[in-house]
C-alpha cells in the first residue's frame, strides 16, 4: 500500500508531509499496532512483498474435505523433516562393527554396526529419542498413505485433465520418491528386518541378466551386505531425495496456485471462477490449525504405539530371517508380487541364469507404474478434448475412467494383501498355499470383475440421477385419484440439487476419419477403438429441452 503512495508522492501533496518527516503513517494510536505497521512498512519498502500478500491472500480455495488430503501429506512431510533433523544429530551412518553397551539388557555385549547401536542409543539413551523416532516413522507411514488417498481423489474426480496433466506427473513422481525415502529410511538402522529387506532388493537387482551382479556389487561396494550400503542410503535419505522432494513439492504448489483450485459442480460454480474462502484470513487459519491437528494425531499415535521395535529384531546377520518379515506397507505391493510368482520360471541358458520369477513381477509393476504416470495423456488422447477443465467430475459421470480406476485399485490391493499372506494364513487358520492361490486368482480376475461392477454401478447411478432430474424423487405420498387409480406423488428436486445432477459433459465415441491423404491410419483406428470402449455405454445428461418437455407433459 505504502509503496504505491511513495511512487505517487509528488502528485499527492497530502501524503508527502509524513514521508518528508520520516514519520510512519498514522493508522492507529495503540503502540503495538504502530509497531506492526512500522515493521510491515519497513519490510514492504525493501521487498515489495505487499503485492504478493495481496495476490496470495486473496487466493480462493474451495471447501471440501477431500481437498485437504494433499495438505495432510504436506504436513506429515514437515513433521518428518523436523523429527528427521533431530535424528541426524545422533545417528551414525556407519557399518563399522562395535559392541553394544547400552541399557537394553538382551543386546548387551552383542557385536553390531554403529548404525544399529546408535539407533538403539537414540531409542534408549537419548531423552525423547524413542518418541521422536516413532513420530518420524509413523509420520512416514501417514505421509505415503495420504499421498495415495490424495492421488485417488485426483484420479476419480478427473482433476488431472488439462491444464493439470503435468502436475499429476509431478505428484506421481513425488509418490515414487516418497517410496524411495521410505525404503531408504527403513534400511538405515541395520537391524534384522531392514537387512532382510535389502537382501530382497539385492536379489531383485541380481535377477537382471548380464548386468545384475555387477550392479549389485557396485551398489553394496562388494558382496552383500558389505560395509558401504548404510552410508550410501543415508546420503540418499537425508540429502538427495529430500532435496528433490522439497523442490517438486514447491513446483507442485506453484502449479496449484497457477491453475487455481478445482471445484465440484454447483450453482454459480463455473469453469472460469473459484468459489470458496480466501487464504487470508480463513484458509490460512484453518490450514495452520490443521497442521497442528495432523502433528497431534501423529504424536498421539507415536506416544502410544510401538513402531519398528529394532531391539526385538536385533542386529543384521545374513543367516536368520524372522517369520513375519515384511516391508513397510507402501512397498507391500512389490513384495506381494514376488510372493505370488509361481515356481519354475528360472532357467539357465548359455551359462546365464534367467530369473523370470523376478523379471516378470518387476516388469509388470514397472508397466503398472508407467500407466498410472501417463494416464492423463492417454485419456486426453482418447477423448480428443483440448479444453481446460476446472469443474471436477463426479466419479459416476465418467464410468469408464472410474471402472479403470477400480480395476487398478483392485490389482494394487491384491498384490498388497499378498505381502501379508503368512499373517492371513496364521490369523484365519488357512494354509499359506491356498492363500497364495486365492490371491493369484484375485490379481488376474479381481480387476476384471471390479471393472465391470464399477462401470455398471456408475451407469446405474447416472440413470438414477437422470430419473431424479426429470421426475423428481419419490415423496412416499400415495394418492388415490377419483377414478380409483393410485399414484405416488413425485416431488421435483430443487434447482440447486438439480444443478449437480445435470451439469456434466457428455463424450461420444470419435469417428474414424481419413486424413488429408485419404488414408485411415492405424493410430487413428486405435484411437477410435479406445474412444468407443470409453464412451459407447453412456447416459446422456438431462438437457434444458428435456426438462421443458417433461414440464409440458405434467
Amino acid at each position, binding site marked *: 500500500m505504502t509503496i504505491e503512495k511513495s511512487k505517487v508522492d509528488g502528485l499527492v501533496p497530502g501524503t508527502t508531509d509524513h514521508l518528508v518527516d520520516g514519520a510512519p503513517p498514522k493508522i492507529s494510536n495503540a503502540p503495538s499496532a504502530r509497531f506492526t505497521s512500522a515493521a510491515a512498512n519497513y519490510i514492504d519498502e525493501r521487498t515489495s512483498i505487499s503485492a504478493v500478500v495481496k495476490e496470495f491472500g486473496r487466493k480462493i480455495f474451495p471447501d471440501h474435505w477431500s481437498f485437504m488430503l494433499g495438505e495432510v501429506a504436506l504436513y506429515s512431510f514437515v513433521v518428518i523433516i523436523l523429527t528427521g533433523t533431530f535424528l541426524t544429530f545422533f545417528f551414525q551412518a556407519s557399518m563399522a562393527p562395535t559392541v553394544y553397551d547400552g541399557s537394553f539388557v538382551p543386546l548387551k555385549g552383542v557385536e553390531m554396526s554403529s548404525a544399529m547401536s546408535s539407533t538403539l542409543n537414540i531409542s534408549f539413551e537419548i531423552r525423547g529419542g524413542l518418541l521422536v523416532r516413532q513420530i518420524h516413522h509413523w509420520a512416514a507411514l501417514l505421509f505415503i498413505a495420504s499421498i495415495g488417498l490424495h492421488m485417488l481423489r485426483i484420479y476419480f474426480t478427473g482433476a488431472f485433465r488439462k491444464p493439470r496433466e503435468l502436475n499429476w506427473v509431478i505428484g506421481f513422481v513425488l509418490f515414487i520418491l516418497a517410496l524411495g525415502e521410505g525404503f531408504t529410511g527403513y534400511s538405515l538402522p541395520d537391524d534384522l*528386518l531392514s537387512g532382510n529387506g535389502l537382501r530382497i532388493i539385492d536379489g531383485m537387482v541380481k535377477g537382471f541378466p548380464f548386468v545384475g551382479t555387477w550392479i549389485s556389487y557396485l551398489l553394496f561396494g562388494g558382496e552383500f551386505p558389505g560395509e558401504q550400503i548404510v552410508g550410501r542410503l543415508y546420503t540418499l535419505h537425508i540429502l538427495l531425495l529430500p532435496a528433490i522432494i522439497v523442490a517438486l513439492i514447491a513446483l507442485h504448489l506453484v502449479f496449484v496456485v497457477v491453475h487455481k483450485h478445482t471445484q465440484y459442480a454447483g450453482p454459480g460454480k463455473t469453469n472460469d471462477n473459484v468459489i470458496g474462502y480466501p487464504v487470508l484470513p480463513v484458509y490460512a487459519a484453518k490450514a495452520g490449525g490443521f497442521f497442528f*491437528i495432523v502433528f497431534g494425531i501423529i504424536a498421539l499415535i507415536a506416544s*502410544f504405539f510401538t513402531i519398528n521395535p529394532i531391539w526385538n529384531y536385533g542386529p543384521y546377520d545374513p543367516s536368520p*530371517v*524372522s*517369520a*513375519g518379515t515384511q516391508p513397510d506397507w507402501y512397498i507391500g505391493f512389490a513384495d506381494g508380487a514376488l510372493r505370488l510368482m509361481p515356481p519354475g520360471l528360472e532357467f539357465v541358458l548359455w551359462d546365464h541364469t534367467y530369473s523370470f520369477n523376478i523379471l516378470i513381477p518387476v516388469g509388470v509393476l514397472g508397466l503398472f507404474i508407467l500407466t498410472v504416470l501417463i494416464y492423463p495423456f492417454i485419456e486426453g488422447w482418447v477423448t480428443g478434448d483440448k479444453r481446460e477443465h476446472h469443474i471436477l467430475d463426479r466419479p459416476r459421470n465418467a464410468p469408464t475412467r472410474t471402472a479403470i480406476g477400480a480395476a487398478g485399485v483392485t490389482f494394487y490391493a491384491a498384490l498388497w494383501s499378498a505381502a501379508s499372506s503368512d499373517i492371513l494364513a496364521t490369523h484365519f487358520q488357512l494354509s499359506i498355499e491356498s492363500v497364495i492361490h486365492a490371491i493369484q486368482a484375485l490379481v488376474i480376475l479381481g480387476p476384471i470383475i471390479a471393472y465391470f461392477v464399477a462401470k455398471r454401478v456408475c451407469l446405474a447411478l447416472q440413470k438414477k440421477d437422470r430419473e431424479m432430474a426429470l421426475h423428481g424423487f419419490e415423496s412416499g405420498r400415495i394418492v388415490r385419484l377419483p377414478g380409483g387409480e393410485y399414484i405416488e406423488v413425485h416431488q421435483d428436486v430443487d434447482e440447486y440439487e438439480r444443478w449437480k445432477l445435470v451439469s456434466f459433459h457428455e463424450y461420444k465415441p470419435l469417428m474414424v476419419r481419413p486424413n488429408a491423404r485419404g488414408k485411415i491410419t492405424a493410430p487413428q483406428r486405435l484411437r477410435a477403438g479406445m474412444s468407443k470402449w470409453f464412451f459407447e455405454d453412456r447416459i446422456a445428461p438431462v438437457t434444458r429441452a428435456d426438462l421443458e418437455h417433461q414440464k409440458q407433459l405434467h
Partner: protein
Amino acid sequence: MARTSRKANRRHPLATVVLIAIGLAFTGGGYALFSSTATADSNVAASQATVEEGSKLFAANCATCHGMNLEGSAAGPNLLGVGAASVDFQVGTGRMPLAMQGPQAMQKPPQFTEEQTAALAAYVASLSPGPAVPTDSQIADTGDATNGGELFRINCAMCHNVAGAGGALTEGKFAPELTGVDSKYVYEAMLSGPQNMPVFNDHNITPEDKRDIITYLKYLQNNPSPGGFELGNLGPVAEGLFIWIFGIGAVVALTVWLTAKSN
C-alpha cells in the same frame, strides 16, 4: 558357679524345638535321599501305582491311535522313545488327545489333571527311555538373555518370529505364539520337537543354552515394549493396518469436521 550348675541342669526353653527340628531333618532328609535314589534308579520303579494308573489312562484315551504298546498306527505315531517330556508337552498343553485330525494338533484346555498327565508320562517313559521332564533349575529364567536372544534369532525366529509372535508354515501348519507359554513347555518342545518343530537335543543346544533362550523369552514377556502398545508384535503389516484404519481414519474424520458447514 551356682548359676552355671543350675543352668546345666535345666533344659533350654528352645531345646524341644531344636530336637524336633533335628529329628525332622534326619527323617525328611533320609526320605528325600531314599526317594531320589529311587527315581535315579529307574523310571520304572518311580511308583508302580503311578505307572499302573498311567497305563489305564493310556489304554482308555491314547491307545486307539498310538497302539496298546505305543507301537503306533495309521492314525498316530509310534511313541517308543519319546520320553516323559513329549507326553507332558502334548497332554499338558491340551494338544493331545486330538480334538480332530488336522494340519497339526491345536492347543486347547488340557483334558487331564497334572497328576494324570504325570501318570501318563511315567507310563510312556516306563516302556522305553526318552527325554525326561526338565527340573526347575533347568527352566529358571536366570540365564544370559543376550546369548538366549542370539540363539533365538538364529534357531527359532524364522518360524516363531523374532518376538515370539508365531508364524505360518506350509499346508496350514504354523509355529505358535510363544508369549505366555510356560517355560517347562518351551524346554520340552525344544527337547522333543512336537508337530513340525525340529528336535533341538542337548548336543545341538545345551541345557544352559536352552535356559538362556527361556530367559530371553521371559525377558520379552515381562518387559513390555518401551515404545508403547506392541500391536501383536506382527511387524509392518500391523503397523500399516493401524495407520490406514486409525491414522487415515482420524485424519479424514477431522478434514470432514474442518470443512463442515456451520449450521
